[in-house]
C-alpha cells in the first residue's frame, strides 16, 4: 500500500503563548514503524533548525494513500505516525509522539517551549505529548 503518497510537515516553535518565536531550536523528525512485539522502531527522517520566525522548513513525509470513506470493519487509518523532538538551550525539551501525517495535507506541529526553571542540573524533565494518532472514527 506504499505507493509514494506524501504529506507535508512544518514545525512551529514558540514560547509565551505565541508571543515569542524560538529561533535555532533543533527539531528531529522520525518515522515510527510498529514492530511485532508491540513496540515501534524509530527512523530519523530529518534534523531541522528553526528560523527567526520559529519555523522549520516544510518537509515531505511518507503517508498512506488518501481514503475518505473506508468501508468495512478492518480499515487501516489514513495517516502515518511520526515522532518530533525539539530542543533548545534554556528550555525544557519537548517530544511529540504519534503525530499523524495525512496524504496531501500540510500538518502544522505547534511546539510551545517552557523556559527551564532556575534549578540545579539534573531534574530536567522532558515534556512529552502523546497525540495518539487520529480521530476514533
Amino acid at each position, binding site marked *: 500500500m506504499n505507493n509514494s503518497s506524501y504529506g507535508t510537515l512544518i514545525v512551529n516553535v514558540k514560547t509565551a503563548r505565541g508571543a*515569542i518565536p524560538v529561533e535555532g531550536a533543533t527539531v528531529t523528525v522520525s518515522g515510527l514503524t510498529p514492530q511485532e512485539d508491540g513496540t515501534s522502531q524509530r527512523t530519523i527522517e530529518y534534523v531541522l533548525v528553526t528560523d527567526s520566525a520559529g519555523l522549520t522548513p516544510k518537509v515531505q513525509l511518507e503517508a498512506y494513500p488518501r481514503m475518505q470513506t473506508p468501508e468495512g470493519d478492518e480499515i487501516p487509518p489514513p495517516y502515518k505516525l511520526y515522532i518530533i523532538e525539539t530542543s533548545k538551550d534554556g528550555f525544557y525539551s519537548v517530544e511529540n509522539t504519534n503525530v499523524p501525517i495525512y496524504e496531501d495535507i500540510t500538518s502544522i506541529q505547534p511546539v510551545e517551549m517552557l523556559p527551564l526553571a*532556575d534549578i540545579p542540573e539534573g531534574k530536567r524533565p522532558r515534556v512529552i505529548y502523546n497525540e495518539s494518532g487520529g480521530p476514533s472514527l
Partner: protein
Amino acid sequence: MPGTPVIPEYITVHLGSAGNPDAQNVTVSFADYIKNVASSEIYPTWPENALRANIYAQISFALNRIYTEYYRSRGYDFDITNSTAQDQSFVYGRDIFQNISEITDELFNDYLRRPGTVEPLFAQYCDGRNVMCDGLSQWGTVDLANQGYTPYEILTYYYGDDLDIVFDTSVEGITSSVPERPLRLGSSGNDVQRVQVRLNRISTNYPNIPKIYPTDGIFGVSTDKAVREFQKTFNLTPDGVVGKGTWYSIYRIYNAVKKLNELDSEGLSLEEISRQNPNQLALGESGIGVTIVQYFLAYIAQYNESVPPISITGEFGEETREAVMDFQRAYSLPVTGEVDAATYYTLYDTYQGIIKNVEPSIFESVARPYPGFPLIPGIEDENVAYLQEYLNFISDTLTDIPKLTVDGIYGPETENAVRIYQELSGIPVSGITGVNTWNSIAALYDDIRAADYLITSQYPGYTVK
C-alpha cells in the same frame, strides 16, 4: 450568563473526565482550541463543506458549555472537558492541519442557534458508524458534502430548518471588529493604520516581519510585505490581504505580545521579589505577599498553558486559589490551593528561570506603569515629567497635541494636552491623568516607539535581510 454570547479570549479545558480531580487543566485561546478539536475529531482529508459543517458544530458546542456555565455552575474550575463521552476530543499539544486551521481562522466567531434565542446551539454529534445519536453524524457529513450539500444544508439536515448561523460575534479582548471589506494594497484609513501599528509592535518580537514606515494608514508596499510575512509566520495563506482570519490573528498575537510587556513593565522591585517565603498564604488573605504570588502566577501563565492567566489584585480570592491548584498540579506538588514553602519556592524558581532563559532583549523596558495615584492639575511629581515626555513623543504622530516643557509640573499646558489626548482617544475628558488615561498614553507611546525602532535599523524601500 445573561446577555449575548461573546467569543472568549481563552477557554480552560480539563484533560480528563469531569469527575477526575487529578487531571490537569490547560487554558488556550479559543481559536487554537477549535483547531485542535477539529484536528482531533475528524479527518482533514474530508471534503471542505463537511469540515466546515463539523467546525460550526464544534464551535457551537463549546460556546454552549461556556454560555450556560455547564461546568462552572457545578463548581468545577474549567469550561469543558476533553472526554468524548461528555464533550469533544482535544489532544493537548497535537499537530493541526493547514486546511482546518484556515477554515477555523475564518469561522471561529460564527455559531449556530435557534431563531429567537441567544444561546449557542447545543450541537450534539457522533461518528455515525460506531455510535449513533440525534445530532450530526460526522461520517454522514462526508456523504452529504459529496452530494453537493453546502455547510448550511448539511447542518439543517441534522439540526432542522429552524437554524441560524450568527456571523462575526464580538471577541473578548478585541475592540475593533473586522473591516467590512478586506484590506489590501491600495486600501487606506484607520483600519489600515491599526494593522500597521499592531504589526510593528509584533515585529519587535518577530524580527522576520519587516517594519512598516510610515504608519500613515495607507496600505503600501511595506504594509503588503509585512502582512505576507505575518501570514507566513502564523499559517495563513500569504496573499497580502487582511480578511477576517488575518485581522483576528493580528489582534490575537498583538494581545499576547502586549500582555507579556505589560506584566514586564509592572515588574516587581528586587526587594519585593525575595526567595524568602512571605508566609503560608491561603484564601481570604491579602497584602504584598499575595500580590507577589499573583504576579508569579500571571507571569508563568504567559509561558505555561497549564496555569490560567489571573489578575493581580492583592486579594487571595477563588481565582487565585484555582490558579495555585493548577500550578501545583502542573509542577507535581501536593494540590492544596494554599501557598506553602514548597509551592512558593517552585513559583520563584520557575519565574527566575524564565527571566534568565528567555532572550533578554524581549524585556527591554517600556513605558512606566501607572504610578498608583491620579495625576491632577497643580501637582509636581517625577511621574508628571514622564507623562510630559510621553505626550511630547506622541505629539510627533498626533500633531493636535501641543509640545510641553518637561518640568514635572502639572500646569495648564499639561492639563490642556491631556484634555486633547482624551478627546482624541475617546476617554472622558477631565484633564486628570487617572489609570485609564495613563495606560492609554503609555500603550500608545510604546506602540509608536516600537514603530520608530525600525527607523534606525531599516529604511523604507530597501530589502530587509
